[in-house]
């Protein structure tokens, strides 16, 4: 077991060394959402006794706030001059907090159910995301004083208005709620025989609702009203479900008492002046309205363009390193050296035996906990490269092994060294044989890169979700994205075929 751990660390280390130069590159290209690679002086002392949380924030000069910006009017995105901006009344809370601390605000947007992990692994300093204070959450994180309490509303299709009027009318029906949100538990506890569907994003739930995959979605009052106001096919009503929530508050890692105390001062001020109801919610609604006018999907082409750009960046870099790793591990697996062979077998089998989604999260949260400033883009590229490397290694190995041994013997008997034989005789022939299989791997990689959207990398799938959230339309952005992916893979296929043809020609 210990050996195994060392082995894994070794693999990870190798890859990190490979990718080290990318750090700078990623920092330069990453959008405002994740531009937090400012070398934080976090020595990450989670020790409550020597709580320096406040001092630490002030020293590094930034407050990193984690949120899930698909939750109007709490937090959502809008575009200004083609750039994504985070707005909503909770973003005003965040701004106020950062201002009171005298530091710069950095927003990190991710799935709601990743937020607490991000908090615990110190990827963010605080979470401001419509998060209710509950006893379970209190076990793992600390909360500030609450600044808002909302009722829970059902969002339904307007056509079903007569059918669903109360909690009880959902008996035996399918109801959706956001994973990790308190509504998820409320649905279970309050509706008898309910079929519950949990998804990571409110936008996905609304799509599910519109395509009748769920009969209703339980969500926060303000959000439900926002959707109903912006989409004439939707309707919302108060569920009257009683909640024993202490209200919505900022979450902090356990023990960050000084930061929490500072937050309470901000909250007190907000509550005293009733800033949220008087000023910030009306402001947020204005964003949503001004938005509605020109929120046709087509006007979001910059989002798609940015998504394509990142998808291509991830693909190209991961194909390169995947191929490098694949060649390296294929050779190691074929090597006479038992240790090298063992390492390669472990790597290949382990990576092929675990889901890529888990690997991506593991790299981001796991390794990210060791290397604090690891940007999501780099984590994503590492995970995709390492994953691809394992599959490419097997393709290359089979390509090498399928060549007759006579080829090697002929080359060696001519005086060629092992290296020359591999380089000039084996690899060119193996490449020609495995080109179609290798091409498949690269196309799979392009498609699978969509999985890194879960850790907030702004590639095509992630941008699609932003467009969905902004336009209140679910299917059309997905369709466009599907088309874009198809065009990309189709083009890639043609390019690969062209080279395959050229290699065949040389025969």
């Amino acid at each position, binding site marked *: 077991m210990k050996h195994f751990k060392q082995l894994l660390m070794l693999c990870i280390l190798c890859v990190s060394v490979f990718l080290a130069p990318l750090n700078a590159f990623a920092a330069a290209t990453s959008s405002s959402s994740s531009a937090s690679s400012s070398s934080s002086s976090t020595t990450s002392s989670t020790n409550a006794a020597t709580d320096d949380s406040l001092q630490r924030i002030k020293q590094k000069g930034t407050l990193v706030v984690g949120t899930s910006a698909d939750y109007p009017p709490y937090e959502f995105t809008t575009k200004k001059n083609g750039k994504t901006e985070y707005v909503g009344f909770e973003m005003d809370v965040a701004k106020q907090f950062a201002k009171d601390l005298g530091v710069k605000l950095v927003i990190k947007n991710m799935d709601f159910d990743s937020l607490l992990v991000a908090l615990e692994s110190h990827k963010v300093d605080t979470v401001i995301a419509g998060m209710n204070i509950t006893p379970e959450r209190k076990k793992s994180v600390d909360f500030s004083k609450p600044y808002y309490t909302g009722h829970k509303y059902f969002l339904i299709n307007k056509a079903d208005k007569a059918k669903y009027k109360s909690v009880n009318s959902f008996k035996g029906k399918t109801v959706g709620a956001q994973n990790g949100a308190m509504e998820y538990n409320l649905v279970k506890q309050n509706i008898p025989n309910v079929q519950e569907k949990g998804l990571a994003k409110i936008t996905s739930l609304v799509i599910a609702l519109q395509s009748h995959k769920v009969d209703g979605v339980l969500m926060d009052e303000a959000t439900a009203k926002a959707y109903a106001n912006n989409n004439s096919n939707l309707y919302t009503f108060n569920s009257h479900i009683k909640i024993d929530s202490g209200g919505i508050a900022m979450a902090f890692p356990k023990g960050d008492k000084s930061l929490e105390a500072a937050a309470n001062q901000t909250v007190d001020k907000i509550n005293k002046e009733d800033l949220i109801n008087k000023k910030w919610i009306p402001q947020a609604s204005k964003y949503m309205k001004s938005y509605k006018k020109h929120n046709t999907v087509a006007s979001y082409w910059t989002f798609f363009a940015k998504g394509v750009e990142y998808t291509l960046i991830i693909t190209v870099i991961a194909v390169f390193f995947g191929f490098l790793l694949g060649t390296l591990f294929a050779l190691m697996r074929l090597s006479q050296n038992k240790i090298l062979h063992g390492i390669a077998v472990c790597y290949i089998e382990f990576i092929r035996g675990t889901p890529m989604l888990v690997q991506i999260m593991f790299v981001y949260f796991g390794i990210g906990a060791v290397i604090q400033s690891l940007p999501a883009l780099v984590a994503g590229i590492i995970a995709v490269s390492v994953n691809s490397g394992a599959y490419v290694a097997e393709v290359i190995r089979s390509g090498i092994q399928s060549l*007759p041994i*006579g*080829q090697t*013997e*002929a*080359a*060696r*008997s*001519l*005086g*060629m*060294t*092992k290296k*020359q034989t591999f380089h*000039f*005789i084996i690899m*060119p*022939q193996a490449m*020609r044989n495995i080109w179609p299989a290798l091409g498949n791997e690269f196309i799979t990689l392009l498609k699978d890169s969509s999985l890194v959207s879960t850790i907030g990398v702004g590639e095509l799938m992630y941008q699609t979700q932003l467009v969905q959230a902004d336009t209140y339309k679910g299917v059309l952005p997905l369709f466009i994205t599907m088309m874009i992916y198809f065009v990309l893979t189709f083009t890639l296929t043609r390019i690969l075929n062209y080279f395959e043809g050229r290699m065949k020609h*040389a*025969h």
Partner: protein
Amino acid sequence: MPTKMIEIQHLKKEFNGNEVLKDISEEVDKGQVICVIGPSGAGKSTFLRCLNVLEKPTAGKVLFEGQDLTNISDPELDKLREKMGMVFQGFNLFPNMTVVNNIKIAPIKVKGLSEEEATKTAMELLKKVGLENKANVYPDSLSGGQKQRVAIVRSLAMDPEVMLFDEPTSALDPEMVDEVLNVMQELANSGMTMVVVTHEMGFAKEVADQIWFMADGYIQESGKPEDFFSHPTSDRAKEFLKKVLK
């Protein structure tokens, strides 16, 4: 006194406990042509491959120009292999390269010859075996006899001091055997040192200076072809000759 080129001392080779070569000691002089004959499975190929250490002997020594090949570093071995050409039963041409590139690659990559020099040598050699018009085709479009002649040329392009042949005509249709044997005969006439594993008894009789008869992991008998073919001494050799000379 002729100079020794290859000296084989108590050579043993086993594969996972299966003793294929039991104890072989022989010598090859410069300019000599040795024909190794014997029943299939006797270990002839294994023996030949031990000479240039494509197969690492289990025990014993192979001295090439006085240097023990079984006990030197890889780079030294690579260096010495340049001087030992090898021709295989299955040709082993590189299918992704044209004929001329098959021939040029080793001189360029290993010897560091320039493109022009290598091309010049390759074309001269191809002309000698009557294949200069095939220089730019791929091996797939050649007949077996043509392939084997290209393979011989490919080895000769490295300017070796000894050539090892492992049943070079066994994979050929009968009508193509002669075109290859003729090339080999010319090579022998030009003074090349050769070790040839073959089933072509006519060729062995005519061209060999020495016949080594191999069976059961030993060289049972060695001698001049006229002696061996007319007066074989061992029972294994008598039995073998009766079968092949029928």
